[in-house]
């Protein structure tokens, strides 16, 4: 499986390396959020109870996770293109490992997330976001964003295998990613959000990633919270990764 994972990873990474404009394109949205929304709402930090003193510093790790989520929602598009041509059928009739087919594509997707996270940090930095935590905070944020990308990338791949339609994939991914973004602490401190949002956020993997990132970037991180949320996120990623690999069987049953 590891050889096949590496081969499949190579294929997708080469394809995205040839279209660098696509990564730039997916950064337009986070840039707008950070620069426009960050400016517009800079006063929210004065609401009593809001933990941070700078909204742009608060917002940046949230936008990192949002970008990872939104971009990975498109991940299944590559599978759909393979299904529209005969590539998927040719591969599935070959001895290629199904796990490798999934993992290689997800690793390539995670590499895109890695680059995006660094770029979103750079935009945030340019807009004035500064962090007291050390390099560790950045590393935790990067790893957490890659896990978000992998988890939702594999869900997107599974939806692609089950629906086989680009329109359905985009519809479902929008339908899922918007509530996940807003029922979380991405935009706003939980202390000033309605109670029901906080309850929902407790079960939101994107929020786990946001909490782990924000904590680890703080001056005095609560590391137990970072590891706990990180562990939830890792477990979630492994489970959906395994489930999405099983979607190949469902696809084959209907060809």
């Amino acid at each position, binding site marked *: 499986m590891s050889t096949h994972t590496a081969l499949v990873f190579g294929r997708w990474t080469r394809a995205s390396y040839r279209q660098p404009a696509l990564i730039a394109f997916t950064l337009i949205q986070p840039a707008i959020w950070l620069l426009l929304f960050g400016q517009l709402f800079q006063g929210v930090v004065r609401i009593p109870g809001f933990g941070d003193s700078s909204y742009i510093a608060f917002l940046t790790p949230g936008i990192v996770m949002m970008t990872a989520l939104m971009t990975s929602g498109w991940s299944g598009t590559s599978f759909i293109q393979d299904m529209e041509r005969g590539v998927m059928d040719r591969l599935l*009739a070959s001895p290629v490992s199904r796990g490798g087919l999934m993992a290689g594509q997800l690793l390539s997707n995670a590499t895109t997330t890695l680059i995006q996270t660094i770029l979103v940090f750079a935009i945030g930095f340019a807009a004035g976001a500064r962090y007291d935590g050390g390099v560790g905070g950045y590393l935790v944020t990067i790893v957490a964003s890659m896990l978000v990308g992998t988890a939702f990338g594999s869900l997107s791949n599974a939806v692609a295998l089950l629906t086989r339609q680009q329109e359905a994939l985009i519809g479902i991914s929008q339908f899922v990613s918007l509530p996940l973004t807003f029922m979380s602490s991405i935009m706003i401190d939980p202390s000033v959000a309605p109670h029901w949002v906080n309850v929902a956020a407790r079960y939101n993997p994107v929020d786990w990633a946001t909490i782990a990132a924000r904590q680890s970037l703080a001056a005095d991180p609560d590391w137990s919270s970072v590891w706990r949320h990180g562990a939830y996120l890792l477990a979630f990623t492994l489970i959906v990764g395994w489930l999405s690999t099983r979607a190949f069987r469902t696809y084959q*049953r209907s060809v």
Partner: protein
Amino acid sequence: MITHALEAVDLVKTYPAGRKKPPLRALDGLTVSVPEGVVLGLLGPNGAGKSTTVKILTTLSRADSGTARVAGYDVVAQQDQVRRSIGYVPQKTSSDPMATGLENLVLSGRIFGLSRQDAVRRAGELLERFGLADHGSRAVKTYSGGMQRKLDVALGLVHRPRVLFLDEPTTGLDPEARADLWNEVIRLSGQEGLTVLLTTHYLEEADRLAGQLAIVDHGKIVAEGTPEALKSALRGDSVQVELVDADLDGSVRTLLQQLPGIGEIVVEGNTLRARVDRGATAVPAVLGALEDKAIPVVAVTVSRPSLDDVYLQHTGRSFKVAEEAA
């Protein structure tokens, strides 16, 4: 004893009902076998069950019942061995458009376990052989349809399979590209004992390429044999009468049926088709009878048996009509 490279017995496959469509019985007890080193043409209109058969034999899909062995391995119990022994060229073009021809071939070779060096060497050989050597380092999306199809066949051969599946290899190609690909397939057959299962809905293609032919209709094989044997099993010639007005009340049919030496008549629109013992004597008799009754005629043609006649004989309708219905 003949060794069979491929044997399928009593395959049944039903696709479940979807929105606005009833369940579809794609295969209804299909049995077929291919001796080693033979090119078998699976001929039938769209929807006859050709692609479904190929998908089951390549392990992509699974039959509801029935068994199949490819290269001696069971397609369900020994999937991995089957996958290592076959090359599959799907109906839709199967290369990655973002990668170059060379990259496509190398990736496929490496998936089948070739070392990087061996995969590159094999890819070079295949590009050369299919006349793509000058285009190996260009992205596939810049290839013409004919070039992409050749690359598809090359992709199916990277790992030197024992059985090659070609699912409608020339559909959508212009006549020149089609003739080109035919030559490649003819060169393939007989080489290295390669067995080929080819599906097609072109009669001419089946006639040109296949050493053995199996006609598929409604998920079953209705006739099998070499194209020559199938044609010579038909007695006499074929006479086709095209009328100005359709024979709505069947009177023309009744009239012609009474003539001596005329076999069963099939009516399709304005055209009546019949098998006759001898074309040369049947045509004057047919024309005479029509003239007596003052029935206007557009054309009368007589021909030696073609695959279309074979098809008509076994399915009760001409290939063209079956295609339009599908």
